[in-house]
């Protein structure tokens, strides 16, 4: 068992086999294809939440195998960081199975859940690093932080500072990072939840930018988190690894962000699931993550509420829930925009899969994270209600529900209804949702009730028993 991983990772980054990136990519596509075949992984578009434990376990083994065969690619040195199977398995076994997020009375415990678990999901709200305007970002944050069913706060990516486009890596990035971090702190303070976990500062692009958001009074604290990203697929670089070094030393939560691309180097649904599992393992080992964001997305559409995306969430979550202690959070990216019923159906589908297959819940990136200001508190409230209602459901039941949800939006995925931005679905003074957004919320909630998903009451029981 190795105790000092980071210097070792640097060492392997410097001395591992040199390979140019396109070659690594090629090797990965071949390896994934072989592993999918060898482990008999099969995507069935009618069975999006498979109840097949064998499939989950085979997928897990394929993920371990992929990481053990490929290692991680360090783009800074163009070398592979090779890891043995034993090292991977040991590091994963030693990863935390529960973490305290936030501080004081606003702290929550996020624990490993397991398949078909009765343990309530922790609800992280958006924004999921999606674009927000300088003007509205503070209101969006507060609308999320004030939601009683939201446990942790997300953060948006704001592309300007004092009205000027931020030049990445310049002083503007530093200043904007500090400013936007202080707005998140201010949002939780105003919401009366000053110790609430803030999971990231999404304005920053560089290690220095991320570090700039830390400030014990006005910024992020050790009880908060910052994302360290993997670059698809199974790639990292010194900028990301340096974040790990700093955050670890400060005792700050590290969030492993993975964004495997469905239809990308991993190929289709099965291959991407293998990559997704491997990416979690890599994050546990190389990033010492407190928890993981399962952020796979469609290569062309940047969403994961289509059949392939939902299946990958379902099988990867089960593979990890059954075989590791990792704390995993789904990361729903939907095609539709705010204020639409389609969006809520997409959210419901993703939330049900996560709740039943062992993840916690992360707020939604509406409009595939493309349009500005498409986050509000209400869809996070909805997601929490659905997730709490889905606790303890069987995978088979969940599959039926998810297929039902899909019926409401699937045919619009190619040309989604982009809805309206925050300022049109919320009153920006009272910070309450406007009637039409609430109506959509009630409409879909009511419809789910009709399918025996008790979105109106289940959360009360969760709160009561918790």
């Amino acid at each position, binding site marked *: 068992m190795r105790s000092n991983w980071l210097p070792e990772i640097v060492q392997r980054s410097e001395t591992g086999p040199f390979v140019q990136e*396109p070659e690594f*990519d*090629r090797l990965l*596509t071949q390896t*994934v*294809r072989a592993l999918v075949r060898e482990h008999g992984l099969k995507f069935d578009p009618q069975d999006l939440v498979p109840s097949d434990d064998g499939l989950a376990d085979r997928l897990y083994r394929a993920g371990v195998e992929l990481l053990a065969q490929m290692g991680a690619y360090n*783009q800074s040195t163009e070398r592979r960081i090779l890891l043995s199977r034993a090292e991977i398995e040991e590091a994963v076994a030693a990863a935390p199975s529960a973490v305290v997020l936030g501080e004081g009375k606003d702290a929550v415990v996020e624990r490993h859940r397991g398949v078909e678990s009765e343990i309530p999901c922790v609800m992280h709200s958006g924004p999921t690093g999606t*674009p927000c305007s300088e003007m509205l970002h503070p209101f969006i944050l507060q609308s999320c932080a004030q939601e009683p069913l939201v446990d942790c706060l997300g953060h948006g*990516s704001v*592309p300007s500072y004092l009205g000027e*486009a*931020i*030049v*990445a*890596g310049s002083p503007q*990035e530093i200043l904007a990072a500090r400013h936007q971090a202080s707005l998140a702190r201010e949002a939780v303070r105003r919401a009366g939840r000053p110790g609430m976990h803030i999971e990231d500062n999404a*304005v920053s*692009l*560089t290690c220095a930018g991320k570090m700039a958001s830390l400030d014990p009074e006005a910024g992020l604290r050790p009880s908060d988190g910052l994302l360290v990203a993997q*670059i*698809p697929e199974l790639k990292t*670089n010194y900028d990301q690894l340096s974040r790990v070094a700093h955050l670890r030393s400060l005792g700050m939560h590290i969030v492993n962000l993975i964004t495997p*691309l469905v*239809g*990308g*180097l991993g*190929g*289709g649904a099965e*291959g991407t699931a293998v990559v997704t599992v491997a990416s979690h393992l890599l994050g546990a080992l190389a990033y010492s993550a407190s928890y993981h964001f399962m952020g796979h997305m*469609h*290569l*062309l559409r*940047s969403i994961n509420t289509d059949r392939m995306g939902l299946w990958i969430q379902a099988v990867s979550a089960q593979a990890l829930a059954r075989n590791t202690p990792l704390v995993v959070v789904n990361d729903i990216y939907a095609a539709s925009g705010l204020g639409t019923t389609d969006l809520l159906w997409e959210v419901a589908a993703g939330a049900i899969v996560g709740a039943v297959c062992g993840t916690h819940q992360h707020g939604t990136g509406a409009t595939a994270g*493309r349009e500005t200001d498409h986050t509000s508190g209400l869809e996070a409230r909805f997601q929490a209600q659905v997730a709490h209602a889905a606790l303890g459901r069987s995978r088979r039941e969940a599959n039926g529900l998810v297929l039902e949800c899909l019926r409401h939006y699937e045919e619009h995925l190619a040309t989604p209804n982009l809805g309206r931005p925050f300022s049109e679905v919320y009153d920006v003074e009272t910070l309450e949702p406007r009637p039409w957004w609430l109506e959509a919320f009630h409409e879909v909630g009511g419809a789910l009730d009709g399918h025996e998903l008790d979105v109106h009451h289940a959360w009360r029981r969760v709160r009561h028993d918790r």
Partner: protein
Amino acid sequence: MTDERLAARLKDALRSGDASAAETAARKALEAQADPLDLIRNVLVPTLTEVGKQFQEFEIFLPELMAAGDAAKAATVILEQAIAAAGKASSSLGTVVLGTVQNDVHDIGKNIVSTLLSSHGFRVVDIGRDVAPSAFLEAARREKAEIVAMSALMTTTRPAAQSTIRLFEEVEARDDFKIIVGGGSIDAAWAKAIGADGYAPDAASAVDLCRRLVGR
């Protein structure tokens, strides 16, 4: 006229992404006196267009697209050699200098564009990711490019596309090249605002755009 059977063999090799089979098929076709330019225009390009379309429809995925691109590249090398040996002008539709803008390290989208452009007969000079404005300029001049193509995934990196265009203007090189932009953070309005010559929302339309710009 190209032997139908040999053309079909080349097509199959391209579709299945088998580079060595594509190479062999190209050689065999040449041995059978096929016109290399005809092979490029009537076999390679349409086959890759079809593969690109399948990818766009998500009937196939990136690994298959990459393999088809690699196979096309292997065949093109053989065919271009034959064209050069016959003393004819290259079949290239033009040179595209392609890169991801400064500070942006995301390059999957750019790589797809690169694959599709080169398999459609463009000479693609891929200068990688995190490319400084002056590096775009230098490469465009060195390679005598027709088109400079920039990609930016993040809203936080897209200002670099504007800086690059500004640099071309300042050194009075703006009219020497067509400059196009694309990538997740860019839309038509932004492309227009920064004075780009074109914008493509996806890889397939990037090919159409480039063709339009070089008049082919």
